[in-house]
């Protein structure tokens, strides 16, 4: 049958237009189930993952998801020994949830009763419980129906095995997470930002923490089927981490993170439905990773491009102010507005090339002109600007001497950095303050106000 394009289909190499349309319009039943399910998962994990990330518990969640494996095996064995089929998703997921919580409690117990730190506690719980899970799983396959139950599918996820009721559970959980987070947004924010303060305010910090981790466990458990437990943590932290590069408030991070999670889920399910041998879980995680790289590089908030541009701009401004000040100081000494490059170099121990570059930039701005004999001369505009910069600088020096206990020999460096973040209004206030109440005793004479 041509219409049956299940996720695990590996026959065709490239999808035809017809197939693409079918997948996009969710005409196929299997595709519909998987796409809706992982989209719901994306929303839920994006939202609770934001708080998980802010609480700095990313890897605790990883241990939690690994710890679910013995729970699945135990639940299966219990169900079978009570005569059940062992395939009932509810019981498997309940077992997973219980063991996930046990894993988190073990981490806490190790951290509080030994001198091992968080990282070792997480690593121990993660590897030992997962090893236990593998052992139990092997045993479970010997039980009747064990090999057919597809328990192995929980490790790397097996989206193709999802049925409508699974997708419904995922939807239900997503709505639940949305509701609880919506209600406890304020409380979670406080918990993540300032635990000490929230304790002092009487918030039940431990209980809130438990609610948060329980929600993480629930989301992890519903992620088992589609992305698998090894990669479940990715769904929790990557959308949230990506969202942080664009948004500044918790609300917008939550919103964006949910969108990124949802989008990755949808795209991943679609791609894996269309292209052969593309496992759904890893594809979704790779897409999340793609969004992360895009956000990390281009994000408006701490993205590396923006940060580098800002840094370059600041460096340029600082450089310009330095060269202006140097020119002013040299011409103060010379009592003339012309100077030579080596005079500047002597003053600041700069590299010659750097000075020439700065001068070229200053020339572009008409602060200096080059004289025919190779000397430089400040223009009127340049000397106005230089005077302003020097005045700012010396005001700050004075300010620091008077207000803070900093020895004059240390003044210059501090003044250099503070000056560049000074706004115009602040400088005016400072001038007023200094003029009215203090004798101006800068190490250098204070430049006349332009």
């Amino acid at each position, binding site marked *: 049958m041509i219409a049956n394009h299940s996720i695990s289909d590996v026959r065709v190499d490239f999808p035809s237009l017809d197939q693409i349309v079918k997948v996009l319009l969710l005409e196929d039943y299997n595709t519909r189930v998987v796409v809706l399910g992982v989209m719901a998962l994306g929303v839920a994990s994006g939202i609770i993952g934001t708080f998980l990330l802010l609480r*700095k518990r990313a890897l605790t969640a990883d241990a939690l998801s690994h710890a679910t494996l013995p729970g699945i095996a135990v639940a299966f064995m219990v169900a079978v020994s009570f005569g059940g089929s062992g395939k009932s998703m509810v019981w498997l997921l309940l077992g997973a949830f219980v063991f996930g919580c046990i894993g988190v409690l073990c981490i806490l117990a190790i951290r509080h009763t030994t001198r091992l730190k968080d*990282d070792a506690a997480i690593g121990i719980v993660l590897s030992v419980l*997962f090893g236990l899970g593998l052992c139990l799983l092997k045993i479970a396959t010997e039980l009747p129906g064990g090999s057919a139950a597809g328990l192995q599918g929980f490790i790397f996820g097996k989206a193709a095995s999802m049925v409508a009721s699974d997708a419904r559970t995922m939807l239900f959980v997503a709505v639940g997470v949305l509701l609880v987070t919506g209600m406890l947004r304020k409380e979670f924010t406080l918990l993540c930002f300032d635990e000490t303060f929230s304790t002092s305010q009487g918030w039940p910090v431990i209980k809130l923490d438990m609610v948060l981790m329980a929600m993480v466990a629930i989301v992890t458990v519903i992620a088992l089927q589609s992305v698998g437990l090894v990669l479940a*943590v990715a769904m929790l932290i*990557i959308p949230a981490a990506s969202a942080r*590069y664009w948004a500044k408030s918790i609300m917008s991070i939550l919103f964006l993170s949910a969108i990124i999670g949802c989008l990755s889920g949808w795209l991943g399910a679609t791609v894996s439905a269309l292209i052969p*041998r593309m496992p759904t879980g890893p594809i979704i995680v790779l897409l999340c990773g793609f969004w992360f790289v895009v956000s990390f590089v281009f994000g408006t908030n701490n993205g590396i491009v923006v940060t580098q541009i800002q840094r370059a701009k600041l460096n340029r401004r600082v450089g310009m102010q330095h060269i202006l000040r140097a020119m002013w100081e040299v011409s103060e000494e010379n009592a003339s507005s012309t100077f030579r490059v080596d005079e500047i170099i002597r003053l600041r121990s700069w590299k010659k090339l750097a000075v020439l570059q700065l001068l070229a930039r200053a020339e572009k701005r008409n602060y200096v002109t080059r004289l025919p004999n190779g000397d430089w001369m400040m223009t009127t505009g340049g000397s106005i600007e230089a005077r302003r910069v020097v005045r700012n600088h010396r005001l700050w020096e004075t300010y620091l001497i008077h207000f803070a206990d900093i020895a004059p020999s240390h003044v210059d460096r501090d003044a250099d950095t503070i000056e560049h973040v000074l706004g115009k209004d602040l400088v005016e206030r400072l001038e007023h303050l200094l003029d009215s109440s203090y004798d101006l005793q800068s190490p250098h004479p204070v430049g006349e106000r332009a």
Partner: protein
Amino acid sequence: MNWTEIDTWIVIIGALCAAGCAVPGTILVLRRMSLMGDAISHTVLPGIAIAFLVTGSRDPLAMLIGAVVVGLLTAFLVQAIQSLGKIDVGASMGIVFTVLFAFGLVLMRQAIDHVDIDPDCVLNGAIEFAWFDQNPDGWGIPRGAIVNGVMLVANLFFMLLFYKEFKITAFDPALAKSQGINPGFMHYMLMTMTAATAVAAFETVGSILVVAMFIVPPATAYLLTERYGVLVALSLGVGVLAAGLGHLSAITVPTWFGFSGTTTAGAMAVASGGLFVFAWALSPSQGLLVRFLHKQRTHAHILAEDVLGIFWRVEERSQSFVQTGDLPSALGVSSRVLKKALHQLLKQGEIIQCTTHLELSQSGRMRATKLVRSHRLWEVYLDKHYPQDANQLHHSASRLEHITTEEMQSNLGDENTDPHGSPVPSDVEE
């Protein structure tokens, strides 16, 4: 149980692997980077897959190089994302290794027709079949044993070569830097060791056992010793023991319940976890049991001293005898606990049973005198330096009297009366 040569080889391979992992593992645990071991052992997978796709063969050297390169890339990316992207290290690790692992899974799925590694093998390894994988000229030694053995020797070699440097960077990176040891170099060397160990071990025992062996034996050893050299040796021992116990229980425990057996790699991980729990509970220096017993003993010791103190004070105040019926409420303990304490004191000969009552023996009186002396001297000391009301002084002194050494007592001064006006008994010589 039917133990064969194959089982022996499985344990040998597991033990070599565990010992090899424990060497870099000690430093990872001490430097609080255990999870770097976890992350790197996950990213072995894409490394192998890439090496396979690039070379088109299963050449072990190519795979080793591929995995080490991707392992180092992981370490680098984790650091870069953490510092450039202002994310905490846990999240950065989680992002890097999951994405790389997902990438590896996709690659493997694409190459699945050409290469006989599958995801299950990634987790479980194939230690059960390692014996069959022998080089023609291998003198009957399985390849897994050679690979893991070479890795163990290499790790030990580097560990001994840079013993000082590793030790100092593990305990105090800042000090290491001031001593001219480049922490960056040491970090990436450790990461290289970790990645190489992970890839060597991975094929035979699977990635889960690798993670367990990196972290659990050193963590167990860490609960047993304070010294670095001992820590390394113990980690090796715990790893080897876990390998033996693991395989043994894998082939025996399930048979008790009518199953045929279970996966050895998983069982080795569980065995190491069992050893960890063992150390956690029973470590002679910091185990839960020792701490519990010590607490019990301290409580009993304090109670006994308090009882002696009461006997002494009653003797001091009057010539009447201690009414043992009043003691429980005076000391705030149940009569059962008190009975036990009295019994203990009788046995030690600190108090003696007279016809109608109990009284202090000679040695008991000496001990009580010391105690009361400490108590009253502490009251004097505290009153002098931290003036507070009288009840407060008594309360503080009753806690301090039990922990006063001879030396402390001699520093407390030599007053004759305490702030309440009671005489300070003079020191007794034994």
